[in-house]
């Protein structure tokens, strides 16, 4: 009897005995994420489940990410299969209004330029020694789009998922700090003062309904490996614009998106196990992610300058910064910056066009990347 009591009591202390320093650090990291989400209000919808997931997975002997563990179950069914980010995309499509883009379609090119940071960062990631597919996954932080980054990294580098999603989401919320200095550095005072008038090109309902259908068909045929990404965003948008399936649209942007955000957040947190996350590589990924978003901004602004030149000074290069897909943060940044230099300048709607272009651009860039990888025989098809 006495020995039974003793071994029973021992069970309560096994956790403490097995707690490693790494786990303690990661529990603190998880708590810090919770603090940022709850107290500072940075992306709480993501940081609360991620932070909590990170704490749970670092509890010794709880084995939540082991076979049959509860987090493992959601990770295997939702993240490894890439289903969670795709479900989120349906909701994003249902929430996005592409009207500003349809009014001014040539601005979509800024949304392409705003993705170049992905490809430039790929070269940097290879240069610092990442494997080919790991480098692809790190570079995709430059899409500045959480679900895209999660989709690509869960496909090619699931072991880096934690670091990549933390980088993607944290830089997205830092866009108002990262972009303005780059915008100022690359433009002249005269360019920043360019006034862009009103866009007055109303769009018919038929156009709005046809847009998601046409994009899906053409873009998916050109980049078939990206069809799941393009198709889900456009399905969501078609449901919104058609106006005949309000119940499905509202479920996609509310219930489904909410449930998936919760589970996806937990799963991302669950990839932050101490021995996987506490590596120099994680810091490198955070650094490269910062570079990626800075390069996106720089190329976007430079492309804006090119368009300014080609249109004889009608386009304010600042709106190029909104070619990244952080929607609508970066369009707001452009409005604020533009008005700093010319109080009579209202760039918001133009920046929104570029920003909506960036939304599509990031998905297309990922789709093109996947298809090129398939063409090169790096990934199966």
């Amino acid at each position: 009897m006495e020995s039974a009591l003793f071994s029973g009591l021992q069970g309560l202390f096994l956790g403490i005995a097995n707690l490693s320093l790494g786990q303690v650090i990661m529990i603190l990291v998880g708590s810090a994420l919770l603090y940022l989400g709850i107290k500072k209000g940075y992306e709480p919808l993501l940081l609360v489940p991620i932070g909590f997931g990170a704490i749970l997975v670092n509890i010794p002997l709880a084995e939540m990410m082991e076979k049959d563990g509860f987090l493992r179950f959601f990770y295997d069914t939702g993240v490894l299969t890439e289903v969670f980010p795709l479900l989120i995309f349906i909701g994003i499509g249902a929430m996005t209004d592409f009207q500003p883009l349809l009014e001014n379609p040539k601005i979509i090119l800024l949304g392409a330029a705003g993705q170049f940071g992905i490809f430039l960062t790929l070269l940097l990631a290879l240069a610092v020694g990442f494997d080919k597919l790991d480098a692809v996954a790190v570079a995709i932080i430059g899409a500045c789009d959480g679900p895209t980054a999660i989709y690509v990294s869960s496909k090619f580098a699931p072991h880096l998922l934690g670091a990549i999603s933390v980088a993607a989401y944290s830089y997205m919320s830092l866009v108002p700090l990262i972009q303005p200095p780059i915008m100022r550095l690359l433009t002249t005072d005269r360019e920043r003062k360019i006034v862009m008038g009103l866009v007055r090109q109303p769009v018919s309902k038929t156009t709005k309904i046809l847009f998601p259908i046409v994009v899906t068909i053409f873009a998916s045929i050109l980049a078939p490996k990206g069809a799941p990404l393009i198709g889900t965003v456009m399905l969501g948008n078609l449901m919104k614009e058609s106006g005949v399936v309000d119940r499905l649209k509202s479920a996609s942007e509310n219930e489904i998106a909410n449930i998936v955000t919760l589970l996806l957040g937990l799963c991302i947190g669950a990839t932050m196990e101490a021995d996987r996350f506490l590596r120099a590589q994680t810091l490198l990924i955070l650094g490269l992610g910062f570079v990626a978003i800075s390069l996106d901004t720089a190329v976007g602004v430079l492309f804006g300058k090119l368009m300014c030149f080609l249109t004889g000074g009608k386009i304010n290069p600042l709106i190029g910064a909104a070619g990244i897909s952080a929607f609508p943060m970066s369009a707001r940044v452009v409005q604020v910056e533009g008005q700093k230099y010319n109080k009579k300048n209202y760039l918001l709607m133009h920046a929104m066009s570029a920003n909506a272009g960036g939304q599509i651009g990031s998905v297309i860039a990922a789709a093109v990347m996947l298809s090129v990888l398939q063409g090169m025989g790096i990934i199966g098809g």
Partner: protein
Amino acid sequence: MDTWTFGWTLALIGMGGTMLVLWILSLLILLIKKLFPYRPEEPAAKKG
């Protein structure tokens, strides 16, 4: 394939391809807008 052939190929085709696909999309949007131009009476027609 060695790392740098891989890197440069993916980077160049990736950037060019993204630009190309989005440029085609912008032309398609212009085409749809030509085919189905906005008519101001549209909201009224919807009611009827």
